[in-house]
């Protein structure tokens, strides 16, 4: 999922300062899991906006706001409310915000679409409702087959491919003593698998052209451009 956190209310209000009639759009996908943009949070933000004297003309939470079809399915029936709105505030990731903008444009509307959240990475839920962690950078050339299923590109603060720096102490990273050194995790995992020899292989520099922004995935042709 895409991890999100809510922006401070002052920042949200500043983004909406010029607008009175607001549509609040959430996301029942990742943002719901992060407790930042599900129906409950949409209702909560709508309530805060009303307290601030705004008029909330729509509260809607698509099943997955970053899927254009699902956003259209949820929002198209409310085209009148969206037409009345002076601005849309989205409780979703940066992708959800941009798909919402696309949907409004496709509905023939030119209204500002603002975000109430900060996107903080591709996250995996480690403890439901409690803890998520970034474990994949979507680098375009996965090396998990070589590293015991633990990604050094993401979990090592320096993204080192050929082993640890000298900074770990008591198994923890020099950047954050609460965090495990990714390379010690990889080493222990490979030792348990009896595959330590494989770690001795030189890993060539990554091809960062595979991460050149913005990547486009042609789903039909299974190609990235």
């Amino acid at each position, binding site marked *: 999922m895409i991890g999100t956190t809510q922006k401070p209310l002052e920042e949200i209000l500043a983004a909406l300062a010029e607008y009175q009639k607001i549509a609040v759009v959430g996301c029942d996908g990742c943002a719901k899991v992060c407790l930042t943009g599900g129906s409950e949070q949409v209702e909560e933000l709508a309530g805060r906006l009303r307290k601030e004297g705004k008029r909330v003309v729509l509260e809607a939470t698509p099943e997955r706001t970053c899927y254009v079809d699902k956003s259209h399915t949820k929002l198209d029936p409310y085209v009148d409310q969206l037409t009345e709105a002076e601005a849309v505030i989205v409780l979703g990731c940066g992708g959800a915000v941009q798909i919402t903008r696309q949907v409004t444009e496709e509905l023939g509307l030119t209204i500002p679409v603002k975000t109430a959240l900060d996107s903080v990475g591709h996250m995996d839920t480690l403890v439901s409702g409690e803890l998520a962690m970034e474990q994949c950078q979507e680098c375009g050339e996965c090396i998990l087959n070589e590293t015991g299923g633990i990604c050094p590109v993401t979990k090592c*603060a*320096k*993204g*080192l*491919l*050929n*082993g*640890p*720096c*000298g*900074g*770990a*102490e*008591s*198994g*923890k990273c*020099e*950047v954050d*003593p609460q965090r495990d050194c990714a*390379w*010690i995790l990889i*080493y222990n995992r490979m030792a348990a698998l009896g595959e*330590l020899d494989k*770690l*001795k292989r*030189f*890993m*060539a*520099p990554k091809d*960062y052209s595979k991460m050149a922004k913005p990547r486009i995935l042609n789903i039909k042709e299974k190609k990235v451009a």
Partner: protein
Amino acid sequence: MKLSKYYNRGEFVITSEVGPVKGCVRPSDGHTPACLAEATLLQNRVHAINVTDNQSAVMRLGSLAASVALKREGLEPIYQLTCRDRNRIALQSSLLNTYSFGIDNVLCLTGDHTSLGDHKSAKAVFDIDSVQLLKIARGMNAGHDMMGNALTQPTDLCLGAVVNPNFDPLDLQLMKMEKKIEAGAEFFQTQAVYDPKRFETFVRKTEGFGVPIQYGIVIVKSPQMGKFMNANVSGITVPDWIIDEMGSVAKADRRQKAAEITTRLVKEIAPMVQGVHFMPLGWSDVVVEVVAAIKASEGDLVQAVGA
């Protein structure tokens, strides 16, 4: 002169370190920056002087400009190059720049993370790692860049690397050390070690590696500094006995005490390897004293190296 030449002659190699100033080294300004004054103290006392690369991720004068300033004074710099601030284009260009300015030695490191420095919001680069950097640098010595494109004039740099004998599990650190040797490292300087037994274990495990190693030591300047290092510098442990001994003397006598402790450790540990590397953090005058003490017993060191 390349450090490898001293090793090939079987010399016990002594190096120290200076950290470039947070400012400029412009000779015409008639001002001698601290790093240059310190390095000058070490003239004819060490084989070469490491020049750090924005150490601890604190923005300073670049190690290239400071290395050139040392070279101009007739000192032998070891240009430190980290992967933190430059992508592969800039790193390779830096190697060309370095050799073009007459520098013969480069120490290839990963670099401290930006979050430890004074520009915490900077984007950390780490496009490539230290093993890859060594391999690329060896390729440039052979006349081509990492993409295989020919260089009009190749570099001819002696390539150094670092290793941390304190690392646990040590075998994982040694696995990386072997990768560095395979990639082209010609000598190693260790992280600061204060535990002779720990260092001996490291030396025994690296006996067959076939590369010269310099025992690294940070000069502990005060009990507070020892405690600070333990609390804040990952990968180094300053034992209580050093903190206690440094605390047992008056402030005015700390330089003398630091020289005594450092000499003691170097005499005990350095004979296990082929050289010593001092990290004096501004106390280069203490290095002068320690080097004088070691030289007085050089016979012992040479004998131990040969044994």
